[in-house]
């Protein structure tokens, strides 16, 4: 209840001993130097240190296998670090698993109580928040139905609804935000904002750079178990994207490959943040090691949930197919008009034979970009709404 500031300091690893007895005997016979790796062990995290001040929201990003989940589990106390120490002050709550402990045979009501106590609420607290929880999930009429009869969306909504009503001092969030339909996701993101503004300390682990950018003032970038950068979110996200692009420019092994991508907005400015509706030019360079013929270039756009919101190919656009030789790289520029809702999107590129019988190269994400909208519109497509009438039908005489 008292102090709510906290501090993390660690340098730890996660050791997974395959078999206890041989390892123990080996250790007894040849005590390994401290910090050494036994066969089959690896450092999921190595000398990771960072502080989170009270009331601060900190993001943790990094590609798969960078150690994000391990950090989560250590912060919540599910696993203990091999070396180093963490210090947390206050009540910690983790949104790692939505609907933890839900049982299919129990009703929604019963599961709310069960899940709520598992997440650390008292029964009195749940009773107080019960209506709010049901309301948030939008499941009032099904609350006495066993959850085995729920759709997966309803199930996730109920789980998330309980989770966001825990009021911890320190909230640790995994990528559980990506549950339910689009509307519900927005509701969850809004709720997260509320929590952050309410002064809670938040550690947010995510792939969703847009959400991290919006939510967190500072961000930690992990790379293979080490902290690569800690700093203002914008800077760290920039590093992360730059590195992703760098990796992309390393030449792949195929006969023909995508050698470069550039996105430019209107006015020719290179950048990755565009206005909704902006005409964006995508320039692609294709190179090859041996002459390749009858190629087609596929262009896709994916949203934050990896939903394919758009896809086409030069072949289908009537541009025909193309050939490329080691001496003559092929260049292609496609204009796309970004009629998209606000959010983060991924540009995907594929290089394949015109009949898709052979794929030479695939880049996803070839680029990550943001779309900003002046209007508060949500959803993948942007229909540019304009309110043209707004009023009730009153008899003419009554207008005030």
């Amino acid at each position: 209840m008292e102090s709510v500031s906290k501090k993390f300091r660690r340098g730890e690893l996660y050791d997974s001993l395959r078999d206890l007895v041989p390892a123990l005997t080996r250790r007894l016979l040849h005590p390994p130097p401290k910090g050494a790796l036994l066969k089959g062990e690896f450092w999921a995290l190595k000398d990771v240190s960072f502080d989170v001040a009270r009331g601060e929201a900190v993001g943790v990003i990094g590609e798969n296998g960078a150690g994000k989940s391990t950090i989560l589990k250590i912060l919540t106390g599910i696993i203990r670090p091999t070396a180093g120490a963490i210090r947390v002050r206050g009540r910690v709550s983790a949104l790692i698993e939505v609907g933890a402990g839900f049982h299919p045979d129990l009703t929604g009501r019963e599961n709310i109580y069960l899940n709520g106590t598992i997440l650390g609420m008292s029964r009195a607290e749940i009773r107080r928040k019960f209506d709010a929880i049901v309301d948030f999930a939008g499941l009032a009429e099904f609350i006495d139905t066993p959850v085995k009869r729920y759709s997966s969306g309803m199930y996730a909504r109920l789980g998330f609804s309980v989770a966001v009503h825990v009021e911890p001092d320190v909230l640790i969030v995994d990528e559980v935000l990506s549950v339910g339909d689009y509307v519900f996701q927005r509701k969850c993101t809004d709720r997260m904002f509320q929590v952050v503004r309410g002064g809670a300390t938040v550690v947010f682990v995510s792939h969703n750079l847009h959400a991290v950018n919006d939510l967190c003032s500072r961000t930690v970038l992990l790379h293979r178990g080490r902290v690569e950068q800690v700093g203002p979110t914008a800077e760290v996200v920039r590093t992360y994207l730059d590195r992703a692009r760098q990796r992309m420019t390393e030449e792949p092994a195929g006969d023909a490959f995508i050698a470069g991508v550039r996105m430019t907005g209107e006015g020719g400015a290179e950048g990755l943040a565009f206005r909704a509706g902006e005409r964006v030019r995508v320039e692609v360079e294709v190179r090859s090691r041996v002459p390749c013929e009858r190629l087609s270039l596929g262009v896709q756009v994916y949203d934050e949930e990896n939903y394919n919101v758009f896809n086409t190919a030069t072949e289908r656009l009537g541009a025909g197919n193309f050939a490329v030789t080691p001496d003559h790289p092929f260049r292609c520029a496609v204009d796309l008009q970004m009629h998209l809702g606000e959010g983060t999107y991924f540009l995907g590129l594929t290089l394949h034979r015109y009949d898709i019988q052979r794929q030479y190269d695939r880049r996803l994400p070839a680029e990550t970009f943001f779309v900003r909208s002046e209007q508060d519109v949500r959803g993948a497509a942007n229909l540019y709404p304009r309110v043209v009438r707004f009023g009730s039908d009153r008899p003419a005489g009554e207008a005030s």
Partner: protein
Amino acid sequence: MSGEGSDILRHRDLLLMLTWREISLRYKQTLMGFLWAILMPMVVVAAGILVRGAFTAISNKPMQLTAALTVAVKSVPWAFFVGAIRFATNSLISNSNLVTKVALPRAIFPIASVCSQLLDFAVASAVLTVVLVIGHAGISWQLLWVPPLLLILVAMTTGISILTSAASLFYRDVKYLVEVFLTFAIFFTPVLYDVDMFTHLRQWLLLNPIAPVLEGLSDAIVKHRTPPLPWVAYSAVFAAVLLAVSLWTFRRLDPLFAERI
């Protein structure tokens, strides 16, 4: 050790909910409902009466009603002991998603299993009380021994449950081992018979730490005499030490649970 205990006290709402979940799941969509609670003791009592019948047939003495009542008084706690350990042994594995995804004092899972079995025990005890009244078992001051004896029983059951739950998380065959042990333990425990039927073997049988508890219960409730106190003290010490050791061990192993499950 005290750490684990106070953790669980702080999470008593959770303990209550987990216990309630186990109970309601056991009785939801079932044919027999609460009859399950008395089925197991009834089977044991039937077996006991059969065994006693055989004894009396051999010794040519008429079978007495008290013999049947003793078996009944001992088989209800025995059913609790067996049932609690059986459920608790699996409790961590069957809650593996909680063990790996949520930070909780994990000893709460085997303890919740024991608590849910306590309810069955209570239901069966209520039925047993009715049987005892009908069978004119009588009342005496010796009944005051019942609460401390039950406390020893619960402590011992909890201790074993905590140990087997942790062990079965690391080695899956522990479950089968426990099953075999529980099946055959009844032959080495005075449930169907009394230790007084043996002269030389008596103290060896009482070395089984659960035996003095069961004998004590039948002494206090049916035979209206003082339980074998030194042996009861032995059981009490055993239960206390076992509980302490099991909590300590559990706490030591706890950090490995999420990785090894």
